[in-house]
């Protein structure tokens, strides 16, 4: 198979132009809260029907890559994850922007996205059939334990009181059960209201919990939204590269985690970036500064979420099971075009597959110049626009973005309600992140648990069902480690340092 010739095929001027256009529009769509990568891809599908299949695939891949990356802008500059996979980017990106390092954060996000994207595509190119089998070994029970592992991040995400983190996560988990249950079919906690029947849409909840509090505090004071330094510093590429070089292990680890999680069709980009964020935090010597604007936090999440692009295509192309929601749309487009997924994608249809992979490579590399350029512009406009225009503009994006997710005014009302609740809770020391974690992991945990329960009943042994598999046991061990590692680390630090300076006072503001 002469892959190089396919790669060169992707480089025809028309395809290059399409990739450029796709990445640029993807970045803009992804940067607007509410406009997700799924939507960007879905809108494009009918346009691609009239194109040559290769060009269509290149454009779809490009817009997807751009949109996942673009999500980081809103996360860094206005504390709103433009796409769910950018949640963890807000943790350090927004504090960086607040203190005047927004330009650096955007540059870091660009560099990390390129690295992550390349790792993901490389995995797709070389290991796809092998890794696809891993996806299948994850059943309901494994997903249940994965969700539990995810929930152990609560203690990492709740600065201050862990108990508050638990309450917040409990609130999020309960929110996730609102609406019609997948398993059992009950209508739960709608209190007779049809507004809540469809459940709480994750992205609108994200917009509400993260962005509305920012808006509420923005109008309260005359101070500028972000701190701005007087001197012009350009895109701070050199500084960014230095951070990236320092965090090269972090980047690779995060990209690997991102690829790995994306292969699991039930997980997705948000979990990938959260897991790699907490791993970066755990591995760091300076874990206390995570959440307060540590550049490594931005590197970790952005490397992970762009790695999900390539990783997610592994089950999509090999098994015909979409790894992420945008993959589902692309898979649909492939089916309509008359392609069959499966082994023949790498044999009889190899030309199309390899052109597509080459196109993803191309799109990822195009992220670097385009991302730096558009990012610079986005940063500049956010810091120069006067507050009286910034507030209505952000408000506009939240309302129209939430509405556009499923064309529903109810979602806008839910978003605003959660925003006010989120602001109040935040004021009293309950961070939004545990709530969001619960909201995202809730359905995975619940469905995994109930399905595992039914499987256990059928097989006659709940214990072997839940604790029998090697993957389950590994994840359980990881969860235990995740819970107890901070304690071990703290004890070791105490033995080493033993300075009386550190007080046990909680700072849960």
């Amino acid at each position: 198979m002469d892959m190089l010739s396919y790669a060169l095929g992707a480089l025809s001027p028309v395809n290059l132009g399409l990739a450029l256009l796709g990445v640029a529009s993807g970045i803009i769509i992804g940067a607007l809260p509410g406009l997700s990568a799924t939507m960007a891809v879905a809108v494009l599908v009918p346009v691609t029907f009239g194109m040559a299949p290769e060009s269509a695939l290149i454009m779809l891949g490009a817009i997807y890559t751009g949109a996942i990356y673009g999500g980081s802008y809103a996360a860094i500059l206005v504390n709103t994850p433009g796409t769910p996979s950018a949640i963890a980017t807000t943790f350090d990106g927004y504090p960086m922007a607040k203190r005047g390092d927004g330009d650096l954060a955007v540059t870091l996000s660009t560099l990390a996205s390129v690295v992550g994207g390349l790792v993901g595509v490389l995995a797709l190119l070389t290991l796809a059939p092998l890794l696809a089998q891993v996806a299948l070994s994850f059943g309901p029970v494994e997903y249940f334990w994965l969700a539990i592992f995810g929930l152990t991040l609560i203690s990492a995400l709740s600065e201050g009181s862990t108990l508050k983190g638990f309450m917040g996560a409990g609130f999020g988990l309960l929110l996730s059960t609102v609406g019609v249950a997948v398993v059992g079919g009950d209508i739960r906690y709608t209190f007779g209201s049809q507004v809540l029947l469809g459940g709480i849409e994750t992205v609108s909840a994200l917009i509400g919990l993260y962005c509305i509090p920012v808006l509420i505090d923005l109008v309260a004071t005359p101070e500028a939204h972000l701190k701005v330094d007087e001197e012009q510093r350009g895109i701070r590429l050199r500084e960014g590269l230095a951070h990236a070089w320092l965090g090269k292990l972090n980047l690779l680890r995060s990209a690997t985690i991102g690829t790995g999680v994306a292969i699991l069709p039930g997980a997705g980009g948000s979990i990938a970036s959260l897991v790699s964020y907490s791993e970066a935090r755990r591995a760091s010597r300076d874990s206390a500064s995570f959440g307060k604007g540590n550049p490594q936090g931005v590197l970790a999440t952005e490397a992970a979420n762009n790695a999900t692009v390539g990783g997610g295509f592994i089950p999509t192309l090999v098994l015909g099971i979409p790894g992420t929601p945008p993959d589902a749309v692309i898979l649909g487009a492939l089916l309509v075009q008359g392609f069959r997924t499966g082994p023949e994608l790498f044999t009889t249809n190899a030309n199309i597959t390899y052109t597509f992979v080459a196109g993803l490579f191309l799109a990822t590399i195009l992220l670097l110049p385009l991302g730096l350029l558009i990012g610079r512009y986005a940063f500049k406009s956010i810091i120069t626009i006067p507050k009286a225009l910034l507030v209505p503009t952000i408000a506009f994006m939240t309302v129209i973005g939430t509405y556009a997710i499923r064309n529903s005014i109810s979602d806008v009302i839910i978003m605003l309600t959660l925003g006010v609740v989120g602001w109040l809770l935040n004021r009293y020391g309950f961070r939004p992140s545990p709530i969001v974690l619960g909201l995202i992991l809730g359905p995975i945990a619940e469905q995994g648990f109930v399905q595992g329960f039914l499987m256990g009943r059928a097989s006659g042994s709940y214990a072997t069902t839940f604790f029998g598999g090697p993957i389950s046991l590994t994840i359980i061990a990881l969860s235990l480690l995740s819970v107890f590692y901070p304690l071990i680390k703290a004890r070791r630090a105490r033995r080493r340092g033993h300075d009386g300076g550190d007080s046990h006072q909680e700072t849960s503001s």
Partner: protein
Amino acid sequence: MRISRSIALATGFGITIAAGVTTLAAADDFPSKDVQYVIPFGPGGESDISARLQQKYFEEITGEQLVVQYMPGGGGAVGWSQLSDMSADGYTIMGSNLPHIILKPMGKDVGFQTADLNNFFYFHYSPDAILVRNDSPFETLDDLIQAAEEAPGAVTLSGSGTYSANDVANTRFQQLADVTTTYIPFKGTGAAVTALLGGQVQAEWGYTTVAANHQDKVRMLAVAAEERHPLFPDVPTFQELGYDMVGGAYRGMAVPEGTPEEIQQRLSDIFQQINENPEFQQKMQDLGFVLMDVPLGEMDDFMAEQHRVYEATARELGLID
């Protein structure tokens, strides 16, 4: 504020005129602009794929675009409960699915009634089927039934959702074959087939479309269609094996209450014309769908018949007394 008010007035005025013009437009030049096609599910599912296939031919016939939108949530309830609020001019149509629209509102309030949906055309269905992995010990349906008889509840079947087409099919099958199986609901057909491929369940309630999609990895034991599917001439129907089961997930389109009769008829004609396109037929068949024509004129009888069938099953499921 004054400026914004004048802009607002102008805008309002413009919209009023636009609305007036569209109401006046006669049915024979319908459609004169893009038609919004709302799918009450997420992207990538069968409703989406079949809509995407219709999209192309709709444009060929009418010269206007069919714009696919998604309004997922509550297993379709979010979309259907909002249909009555949408403009009843024929430019907004919504995917309509059986048995969902009958089973969902049964015995509980989900924001819409089956009668709220003005179905104007039903165009295909994907027949229910029992799928197993290629390496499964179950060679025939009888093997599976025998295993279920020996150990009631030990045979696990995955499927999409509770009170869904799959759940209904499993209930009917248990009744007809007089066995007990364990039905495990998943979120969507994709997740259900993943569980089958990964070996977490022994069989899956799916559709011919699933088998068409994963031809190299799964095979079907029986299909709940009247005739064998042309893609799978070796797979028997349930009826051949002695179980009176014909059914699956039916798909059509509906418009809001109050849409003019002639517009509905025109829409029905357009989609019938799409169904008659040989290229469309071939593509649908390759994906495992079975085409059917239920135009506007036959819709009431069709719905009444389906209602009768599913009411009986709903009783069995315990949805209604």
